Every structure is written in structure tokens, then in C-alpha cells.
């Protein structure tokens, strides 16, 4: 019976205060209440429980004698005690703070104060941390705020030489050597396992797979191979290749000399200059120079671009010198 009852009372009356004054009441009332409880349960509880309570009521009504009732009531009470005990144990196993707070207002207040202080400290700390990270005085963030700097270019916009490449605080190797921290992220390291033997095997494989001789001569497609050249060392170049233009005006030896030249006027500049000079000399010798000489009287009309020069200087200046200088368009038009 008790086995049947216990779960019922657990479910119906979960309040210990009700259980307390039930001991002195006759079993009829108790039973009545039980019925009330059961009827209540019938409406509200799930189907399974209702069926079980129906079975329980039938059983309790079948007991006729008072002794039986008394015994049953004692059993019930024992059952209650057990359940209450369990309940109390459960309550005892709760964190004591809640009950302590109910008992003692002073301690309660102290705990409340502690909690409030903690929350306040946390809040202040978060606030300060955010403030420090967002607005360090004088940082680049200030420039962004003032509109001097676009925030999307932050990464590369600060003054860009960093003086000491040998001291970088952004990279740290972990103590165990298995990790490295770079720019705030920790990476796991793995050892390189390539051995010399493996390298040699790969080299051998490649030497079998690719047999190649570097061409030393480039020829345009369609050219004929010079007689002293090994055909294996010729690289044929299609006509649209950047190398394929050109019949160069200078030969190879001259080009090499040009590369090696350290001082003086570059070859072509000098050659052009000399050619020009030869031309002028030729002109002079043919007495055509008179036409090129600027008549000092006529030159006065054109003084404006040459204000800094005296007319004497203009007269003395040879046309060969003039060509190299920056002349104005007006000057160029002059014969």
C-alpha cells in the first residue's frame, strides 16, 4: 500500500506545512481530502497519474475496519515522514545562501554588497579596457577621428620605416618550442622532415624527367642558323615576342661596351652629338652658315625669351650650342 501511496502524496501535497497538521485529523477527512486531491488531479494531471489514483481510491475504500484504518494512517504518516525527510534533505543540500539570507538580514546585506561591488568592479574594468583600447591618447585612432586618415588604410598608413628590424615584439616563440605567437595569434609548429636523401631522390627524378640545355642564342623564326652555332643551343622565338623585334643598330661588342661604360657621355649621345657637329661643320664649310647666324639687329625683336642674355652673347652663341638648349616655340619657328 505504502508503495502505492507514497508517490501520490509526493505529487499532491508538496508543501510540508499542510502535512504538519494532517496528523491529528481523522482518516475520513484525510480520505476526503485525498479524494479532493485526487479529483483535482483527475482534471489536471496527465492520464497516467489519474489512472493510478483511481486504483488507489478503490483500494482505500475496500478497507472496512477502523484498525485497518489506523494502521493504514500510521503507514501513511510514516510514509509522509519519509517523504518529508527526503524533502528536508533535499533542502539541506541546496546552496545555503538562499536560506541564510532569509534568516539573517545583516549577512544578507553584506553578501548583496559584495555582489554589487563585484559587478561594479567588472563594469569599471570593462569600461576602462575599452576606453584604453579605443582611445589611447595620441594614437593613430585620433587621426582617424579627426578625419586626417582614412580608417580603412590604417594598416599601412603609419610612418613606415621601422628602425630596428632586429627587435620585433610581435613574434614570440612558446616556451615548449611547439608554438609561435605572431601578431596576437598562436600557431602550432611542425618540424620539417625533408632529408638530404629525399632531396637527392627528387633531383635524380627531375634529371631523368627534364633534360634540357639552356639555349644561348635566340633566333627569330625563319632565320638561318649561323654555321658556327650548335643547333641545340638555339632558341627559336616567334615574331611577336618582345625579343623578336629588332635588328639592332649596334652590334654585340658595342652593346657590351655600353653596359660596361662607367664614365663619360653614353655612346649614342656622343655619336649623335658628333654627327650633328659634323653636319654643322659641313654647313659652315659650304658657307651656308651666314643664314643661320642671327643678325644682332633683328634679334632685338626676339629678345623677350632671352632677356637674361645680352645681345652680344646672342651674337656670339653658335647655333650648335643652341640646338641642345630648350628653345621656345617662337625661336623654333625662326629660320
Amino acid at each position: 500500500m505504502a508503495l502505492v501511496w507514497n508517490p501520490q502524496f509526493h505529487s499532491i501535497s508538496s508543501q510540508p506545512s499542510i502535512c504538519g497538521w494532517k496528523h491529528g485529523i481523522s482518516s475520513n477527512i484525510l480520505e476526503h481530502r485525498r479524494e479532493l486531491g485526487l479529483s483535482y488531479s483527475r482534471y489536471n494531471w496527465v492520464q497516467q497519474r489519474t489512472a493510478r489514483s483511481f486504483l488507489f481510491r478503490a483500494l482505500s475504500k475496500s478497507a472496512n475496519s477502523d484498525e485497518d484504518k489506523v494502521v493504514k494512517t500510521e503507514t501513511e504518516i510514516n510514509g509522509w515522514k519519509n517523504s518529508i525527510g527526503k524533502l528536508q534533505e533535499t533542502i539541506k543540500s541546496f546552496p545555503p545562501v538562499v536560506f541564510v539570507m532569509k534568516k539573517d538580514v545583516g549577512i544578507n546585506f553584506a553578501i548583496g554588497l559584495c555582489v554589487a561591488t563585484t559587478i561594479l568592479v567588472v563594469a569599471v574594468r570593462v569600461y576602462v579596457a575599452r576606453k584604453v583600447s579605443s582611445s589611447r591618447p595620441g594614437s593613430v585612432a585620433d587621426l582617424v577621428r579627426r578625419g586626417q586618415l582614412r580608417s580603412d588604410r590604417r594598416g599601412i598608413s603609419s610612418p613606415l620605416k621601422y628602425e630596428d628590424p632586429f627587435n620585433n615584439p610581435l613574434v614570440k616563440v612558446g616556451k615548449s618550442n611547439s608554438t609561435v605567437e605572431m601578431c596576437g595569434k598562436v600557431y602550432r609548429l611542425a618540424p620539417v622532415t625533408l632529408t638530404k636523401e629525399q632531396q637527392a631522390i627528387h633531383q635524380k627524378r627531375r634529371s631523368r624527367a627534364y633534360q634540357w640545355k639552356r639555349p644561348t642564342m635566340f633566333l627569330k623564326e625563319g632565320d638561318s642558323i649561323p654555321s658556327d652555332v650548335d643547333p641545340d643551343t638555339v632558341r627559336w622565338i616567334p615574331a611577336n615576342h618582345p625579343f623578336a623585334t629588332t635588328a639592332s643598330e649596334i652590334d654585340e661588342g658595342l652593346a657590351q661596351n655600353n653596359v660596361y661604360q662607367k664614365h663619360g657621355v653614353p655612346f649614342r649621345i656622343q655619336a649623335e652629338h658628333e654627327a650633328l657637329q659634323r653636319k654643322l661643320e659641313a654647313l659652315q664649310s659650304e658657307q651656308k652658315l651666314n643664314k643661320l647666324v642671327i643678325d644682332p639687329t633683328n634679334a632685338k625683336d626676339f629678345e623677350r625669351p632671352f632677356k637674361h642674355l645680352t645681345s652680344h652673347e646672342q651674337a656670339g652663341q653658335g647655333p650648335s650650342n643652341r640646338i641642345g638648349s630648350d628653345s621656345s616655340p617662337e625661336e623654333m619657328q625662326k629660320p
Partner: protein
Amino acid sequence: MLSPQLLPKTPNPLSSIYTPNPFKSLNPKTLKPSKPNFKPKPHNPTTIQSVLQWNRKPQLAGDTPRVVVITSGKGGVGKTTTTANVGLSLARLGFSVVAIDADVGLRNLDLLLGLENRVNYTVVEVLNGDCRLDQALVRDKRWSNFELLCISKPRSKLPIGFGGKALTWLVDALKAREEGSPDFILIDCPAGIDAGFITAIAPANEAVLVTTPDITSLRDADRVTGLLECDGIKDIKMIVNRVRTDMIKGEDMMSVLDVQEMLGLALLGVIPEDSEVIRSTNRGYPLVLNKPPTLAGLAFEQAAWRLVEQDSMQAVVVEEEPKKRGFFSFFGG
């Protein structure tokens, strides 16, 4: 991206993994003293002490000038970006560098360096005798020991007769110049393996192969490596560019170690994918000069470091670890 270098002196169980290669031959012409500025921790000498390579100046290995061709086979993998960044890193480390843009038809290095308005003369003019070689060298104002030399102007063409020899002459002329031979001559190779490639690799002693962790790029890289080896360039190291650790973690991208397994080349550097690369290109300001430094910039800097010392990576970054957060991190700590 970066590999830690352990101090060789410190005994440690992982040293077989991490100890750097011994330098092949240290050049006496190191910039600043060979005394590394390590920061030992005297109180605990037995701990594994790993230092990153910033803590000392790199020691120049090999004979100068080191003529390095930066090539890939495939286009668009980052040869020019690598040349610009490694070149400027080397300049910042104190070495004199001449970067030659050997891409005849399609030069871009000047754009990346922001020097496009200063290129008046090119190698074509030098060959033709319109200017001297020193007039064609464009000195970077940010780091005066960095100079740029373009082979030709866009749309102009190189005379076919000595296309292949032009760069060899240039390197010889640079070696013999009055202010001293540059420490590094970096040649930015054009994509492909035709005449431009042949011209670019002609004077080189060593090569840096730039590849991305995808199969198309790897096949070309393998071919190019084969050709370089046939040409007698044995010192070939690779830079794996545009690596995404998140995709590697999700098995969507080959890891650097996979790439290495396929090519069998020593690693000079691993460059993570970084949006700053595009921004710096737009700006004409190489990544390595960025402040604050970016991940890719740091990686380029480290690659330059290894290039100086003829070293290779001993450990690679495989994936990102979730950062451990403290208990109070929830409360803004």
C-alpha cells in the same frame, strides 16, 4: 611562416629538429660583428632557449654578389612581390641590393616598389648607348642601398641578338662598379620558360622558387626546378606563398610539408595569405616596411634572413591554435 632558431649551444632534445644548418662559408664581409646579441637567461640555463632571428644581425654566407633568380614557372604566384619584399628586407638588414626586373614585356616590380615614376632609363637604353648603367639604376629613397633596374619599358623590345647575354653583362658590370659590388642581385624572372626565363636565369648562381600550395603551380615549379638543375643551378630553395592555415586545418589545402614532399626542395619561407599584400601593392609600399608589421611581411623578412645565411626552415607553422584565455578574460581581462 617563421621558424624559430635554437641557439646551437643549448643542449636540448629537440635540437635535431630545430638546429639550423651550419653556414656553408661565412663571408668576412658581414655588416656588423658576428657576435650575436643573444639574451641568455642565466637563472635557468638548461631550458630550451629558442630565439627568433631578430636578435642578431644575419651573417652573409657565400660569395658576393649573390645572384639570385626568383622564378616560379606559373604566373601570378608572387614572384614580383617576393622580389620586392625580400629585396627591401635585405636592404633593411644592411646589404646593398640591386633588383633587376627581367620581365621584358610586362614589368611590374617598379609598381610594387612605388618607383614607376622614376624609371627613365632601362637596360635597353644602356645597351643602345643612350645612357650609362649607373643612370639606369633607380635608387630607392627609403633605403638607399636598394636599387632597381628594369630591363625594358613596357611595349619596348629587347634586341634579339644579345637578349640572352644582356643580363650576364649587367651582372659583370655591377660586380666591377666603383662603389663596390652589390651584396645581392635579385632577378625577377618572368613567368613561363621561354626566352625571358632563359635570359633571367643565365647569370644566376642560386634560385628561389616561388610556389603556391596548389597542384597547377606545383607542376610548373617542378618543371622549372628541373630546368634550373639542368642549367647547373643547384642551390634552389622554395618559398610557399599564399598559405592559409585555416584551409590546411580543414584539409582543403595542401600543407607546406605536403608541398615539400612533392618538390623535395628546402624551404626558404612560408608566406601566409594576407590582404595587406594587395593594399601594399596598391600603395607602392612593400609589406616589409609596414608598421605595424603584418604576418606576410614578417614572413618575408624571415625569408630574407635565411637567404642571407643560406639557411632553410627547420620548422613550419601548420595551423592556428585557439589562444588560451584567462579566467577573467570573460570580464574584459
